């Protein structure tokens, strides 16, 4: 693993603003105080992914992990901040370079049902992009598609079929073949295995690991399933309500999480255990990102919260080499 960062993000933010609807605008004209609602989906996040690394991005729903993944994949434009690809600012790339960068970063989506065009045959789902981008020729497409399908463990005989003729696991493989077809260097997998049955999940996880060693791929693996993340990632980043709360190498983090949220999250992972256990869940719910708590976002649910947590946003600090955490307790 070289030390060079393949993708890096600095101060990345994404805000979604909901404009007042008609009734709201009329009320506004009549003098009522109507404010735009802003969701801080991602709030000043820094992230660096080295070549060959598998980084897990973990958090509960609404924490902004998918939004961050989409910004890094280039599907969403950040409101603030910058993304660098191989050290170059992505916005400042020449059009040919930007083109290459887009091909090098591919995304694999959660829903194997919604992310494939139901009216296209597998052949064109997988083969269209490489032909358009000149990776293969139209006459060479058939054998190129065969090759891609074989790589993901599908029978090339199936290439004349439509997506609905496949099971969930096979559709996942088609999605993966489509991403691989343009020779990417970096894959953003957004809950890519969440919709699959346990026995099929294991097959797809194995496929991801095989492809990694075969093509020297780098992954950003977005998931809420900590068991899977622990298994396949080198480094884990934990998000809560749009902010990174802790990041460390997988071994270190799973051996002893530092941030109280990370501790709670790891404690809740259901594991196959042999005895009945009593659950000690953390209290409360994930607050609405429309109206996040002041100070540290986690303080209303945190068992260790004190005054400072309510007033001051904790900054991410290095607490050990390669390990960062955002908690006031670390200052004590």
């Amino acid at each position: 693993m070289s030390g060079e960062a393949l993708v890096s993000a600095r101060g990345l933010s994404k805000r979604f603003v909901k404009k007042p609807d008609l009734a709201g605008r009329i009320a506004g004209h009549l003098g009522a105080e109507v404010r735009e609602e802003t969701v801080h989906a991602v709030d000043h996040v820094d992230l660096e992914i080295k070549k060959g690394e598998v980084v897990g991005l973990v958090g509960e729903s609404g924490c902004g992990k998918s939004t961050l993944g989409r910004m890094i994949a280039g599907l969403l434009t950040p409101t603030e901040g910058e993304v660098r690809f191989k050290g170059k600012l992505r916005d400042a790339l020449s059009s040919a370079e930007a083109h290459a960068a887009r091909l090098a970063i591919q995304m694999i989506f959660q829903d194997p049902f919604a992310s494939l065009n139901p009216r296209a045959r597998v052949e064109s789902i997988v083969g269209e992009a490489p032909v358009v981008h000149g990776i293969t020729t139209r006459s060479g497409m058939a054998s190129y598609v065969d090759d891609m399908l074989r790589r993901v463990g599908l029978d090339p005989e199936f290439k004349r079929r439509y997506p609905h003729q496949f099971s969930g696991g096979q559709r996942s493989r088609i999605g993966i073949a489509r991403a691989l077809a343009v020779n990417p260097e970096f894959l953003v997998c957004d809950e890519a295995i969440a919709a699959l049955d346990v026995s099929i999940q294991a097959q797809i996880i194995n496929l991801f690991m095989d492809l990694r060693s075969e093509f020297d791929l780098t992954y950003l693996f977005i998931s809420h399933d900590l068991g899977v993340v622990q298994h396949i990632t080198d480094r884990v980043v934990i998000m809560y309500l749009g902010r990174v709360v802790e990041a460390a190498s997988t071994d270190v983090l799973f051996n002893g999480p530092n941030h109280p949220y990370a501790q709670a999250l790891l404690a809740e992972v259901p594991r196959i255990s042999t005895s009945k256990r009593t659950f000690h869940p953390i209290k409360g719910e994930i607050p609405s990102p429309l109206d996040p708590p002041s100070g540290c976002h986690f303080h209303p649910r945190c068992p260790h919260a004190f005054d400072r947590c309510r007033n001051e946003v904790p900054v991410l600090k290095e607490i050990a080499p390669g390990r960062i955490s955002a908690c006031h307790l670390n200052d004590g």
Partner: protein
Amino acid sequence: MTGPDQGATEPTLAVDGLKTHFFTKAGVVKAVDGVSLHVNPGEILGLVGESGSGKSITGFSILGLIDPPGRIVEGSIRYKGRELTTASYEELRSLRGDRIAMIFQDPMMTLNPVLRVDTQMIETVRVHHRVSKAEARERARAALAEVGIPSPESRLKNYPHELSGGMRQRVAIAIAFINKPDLIIADEPTTALDVTIQAQILAEAQALCARTGTAMIWITHDLAVVSSLADRIAVMYAGRVVETGRTADVVNAPRHPYTRGLINSVPSHNARGSRLAQIPGMTPSLMNLPKGCAFRTRCSQAIDACLEAPPIREIGPGREVRCFNPVAVAQSATVEATP
């Protein structure tokens, strides 16, 4: 409550040889094909299986919720000795929501989006019991408090859309528990929730069952969830129960190759970064099952005898396996972590 004592108490529910088939244009889908199981008072039974294994249809069959083209073609479902498969609509109606309740995966299936929470809860009480509105409302408030909803009085006035996913599921659970039923069938109630919320719901459900003596069937695809919750586990594959037993026995020493495969494919049972032990192939279509044992084509232990359908056999007290060539006890202990 651990360790069911079969002889002493009559089971709350006993299902015997249940077959629910769907008669579609393309052919007969044998969604449930000979399922037998029972739950005792206060016991939690984990019904585990992958999609298409028939676990949900088993739950729906118990409540009489099978619509055409589906039909219960064979078998019996006895609730406290009463046969439910032949019960009239009125009889079932008086049981459903009162003595037997269901919690669905999506709480919006239980909750009416245009009615306030209190309206729905009061109705559930008053349909089955002659009590005043004020009394019913008080029971609703108590039920919400019991599932850990903060400020239940004001939540009663909310509409379902004003609540978060976790809160909605709690309301659905409160409605299921409100008439103090004898049996609750929970169909993947935490699958759509985040882990921290899932842990809260599991804690509530476990405590409620222990407190009220309600029996529960917890249907899920997630062995990890039931292993920490259930007293006993029944594993389903392609419409049949393939293995049952006490949770610790099934998890520690699975005897059916499918159960062992499921447990071994969980990442935490494998060395980090190693290839996962996977079950080859995919779940077969219920229209076109392999002859004999349905798992035969994916099984590493298949023998010639497997061309015949194996019967379920008792291999210990309360422990049954549907396999001709079960995993030997010594090697069934979950895979060693190979470096």
